[in-house]
């Protein structure tokens, strides 16, 4: 299988990503030897549009995507010095995410694909995150993936392209959501993740006693809503808050998260060991929260203690981007997954479709 892949012809794919508040397009080429090269990776963030609202407003996001997407695609082609005829396919995020944005990405991709006679690959956004390490580090399967972002918090065993086994997920808030809500509560700037991380640098993580939800329990599910509530209660009890109070709360919150991740990682690795695929040698962190340097360090130490090599893609490839979507498209093409000219956007789309929905994961089913 490896030899047939290594002899395949080079493939170039345009990736399109509009599932949340980034309008993104990228050109990625897979060489004959199987290595990937990011030839352009354009990400237009809508941060300023949403900042006043303390979170992503779907209608504002959709309005921004429709104005920007064609220009972002043109820029990706220009920067890669690529023309339509250089492309083998268009890969587009079809879910999960905000439906208004997903519809614009898929309809634009479908229009371009039809006009240029290109294959169209609908991509699960989470698969983009899951496969990034095979692009950046040439990592081989299987590996353990911790996917932590504004919408997702889960451990997955990545066994191959299109083969993902969910080991655990959040039963309430996603980790990035907990960061954002903590930041909002403390009056820190949006987006909350970087604000909390920055504020925590001067803080004493031991000052406030915060819970570590689910630690010590079986399995590797997450729960963050209780931690968020505890932060609010401590903040209200100590109001009005000084700068030092803020820093100590942020540091305490971050350390609690680090402890939770460490505990859950131990359980996730135990789950892999007992599974049929043996033991992965690598832990990969992906998603926006994986850009947090404190948590990267904690994960690296925890992985090392368990005999795993830790890999986290560069921060700009952890947060939402289209290079990962293009690479997922390339990977699926190579593995013989069919193209589709009818791509229906899906707000909810679990990566492991066989996984049971989780209690508290929302009336429309598991977040992921």
């Amino acid at each position, binding site marked *: 299988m490896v030899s047939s892949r290594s002899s395949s012809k080079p493939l170039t794919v345009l990736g399109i990503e509009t599932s949340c508040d980034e309008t993104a397009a990228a050109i990625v080429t897979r060489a004959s030897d199987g290595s990937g090269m990011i030839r352009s990776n354009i990400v237009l963030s809508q941060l300023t549009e949403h900042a006043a609202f303390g979170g992503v407003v779907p209608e504002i996001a959709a309005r921004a995507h429709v104005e920007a997407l064609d220009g972002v695609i043109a820029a990706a082609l220009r920067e890669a010095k690529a023309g339509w005829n250089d492309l083998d396919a268009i890969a587009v995020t079809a879910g999960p995410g905000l439906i208004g944005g997903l519809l614009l990405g898929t309809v634009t991709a479908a229009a371009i694909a039809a006009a240029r006679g290109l294959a169209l690959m609908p991509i699960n956004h989470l698969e983009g995150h899951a496969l990034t390490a095979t692009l950046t580090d040439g990592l081989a399967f299987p590996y353990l993936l911790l996917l932590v972002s504004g919408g997702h918090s889960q451990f997955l065993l990545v066994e191959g392209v299109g083969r993902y086994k969910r080991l655990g997920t959040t039963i309430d808030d996603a980790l990035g959501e907990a960061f954002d809500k903590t930041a*909002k509560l403390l009056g820190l700037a949006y987006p909350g993740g970087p604000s909390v991380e920055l504020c925590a640098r001067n803080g004493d993580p031991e000052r406030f006693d915060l819970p570590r939800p689910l630690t010590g329990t079986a399995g590797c599910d997450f729960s963050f809503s209780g931690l968020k509530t505890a932060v609010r209660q401590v903040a209200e009890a100590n109001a*009005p808050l000084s700068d030092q109070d803020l820093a100590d709360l942020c540091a305490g919150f971050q350390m609690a998260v680090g402890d939770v991740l460490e505990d859950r990682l131990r359980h996730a690795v135990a789950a892999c060991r007992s599974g049929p695929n043996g033991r992965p040698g690598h832990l990969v962190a992906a998603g926006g929260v994986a850009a947090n340097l404190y948590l990267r360090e904690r994960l690296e130490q925890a992985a090392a203690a368990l005999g795993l090599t830790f890999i986290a893609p560069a921060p700009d490839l952890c947060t939402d981007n289209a290079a990962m979507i293009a690479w997922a498209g390339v990977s699926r093409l190579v593995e013989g997954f069919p193209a589709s000219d009818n791509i229906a956007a899906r707000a909810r789309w679990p990566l492991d479709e066989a996984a049971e929905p989780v209690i508290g994961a929302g009336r429309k089913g598991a977040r992921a």
Partner: protein
Amino acid sequence: MLILALDTAGENCAVALAKTGDGLSVLARRNEVIGRGHAERLMPMIGEVLAEAGLTYADLERIAVTTGPGSFTGTRIGVAAARGLALALAIPAVGVGVLDALIEAAGVEANDVIVAALDARRGEIYAKAIRPNDGKIIYDAQVTTAADLAQAIAGLGGEPVTLTGSAAASVAQVLSERGVMAAIAGEAASADISTIAALGALAESGKSPAPLYLRPPDAKPQTGMAVARK
């Protein structure tokens, strides 16, 4: 010029392939009343009209698309498809306002005032009024109420008034209460797709079509969420 016209701003999903020359001739057309789900139907319908006319994407010379007002999501889907096609084919895409198309389709005599009015829900309407003889905009496209629109129309010089659009009857009612008798040219919520093609053929190219929402996003800045600071 071979022009592809798209309308996804309302309940309809409409597509037409038209050729300009000696007037405008529609080569193939589709119109489905679908309410929602434009994203799934639009590209297959474009494929159908091209196949029926025996043409390909490479033959297209211009895309015309309705820009609203209407469904925010529906309007964006048409605009995104038009801009994607324009980028891929290196041809212009132009926008056609839904109210402008209704006014054009009404085909009113020059001295009248023609008012297009659409139901915008929440007790409001989208409206625009022009005087065709000099092209003067009497009432620019906006979200308003039938009462406000009627007041503006009643204050004119007494020209004959013709109404079109899904809110035409309710505006006529309010106008009659003010002593203004208006004719109703039609009560459809959208103009025929051939009108979109005709206006698109005349539109100036060079500016990408953008949705005409007429309403801001339904979102309020959050304040007062944070715990008190020293």
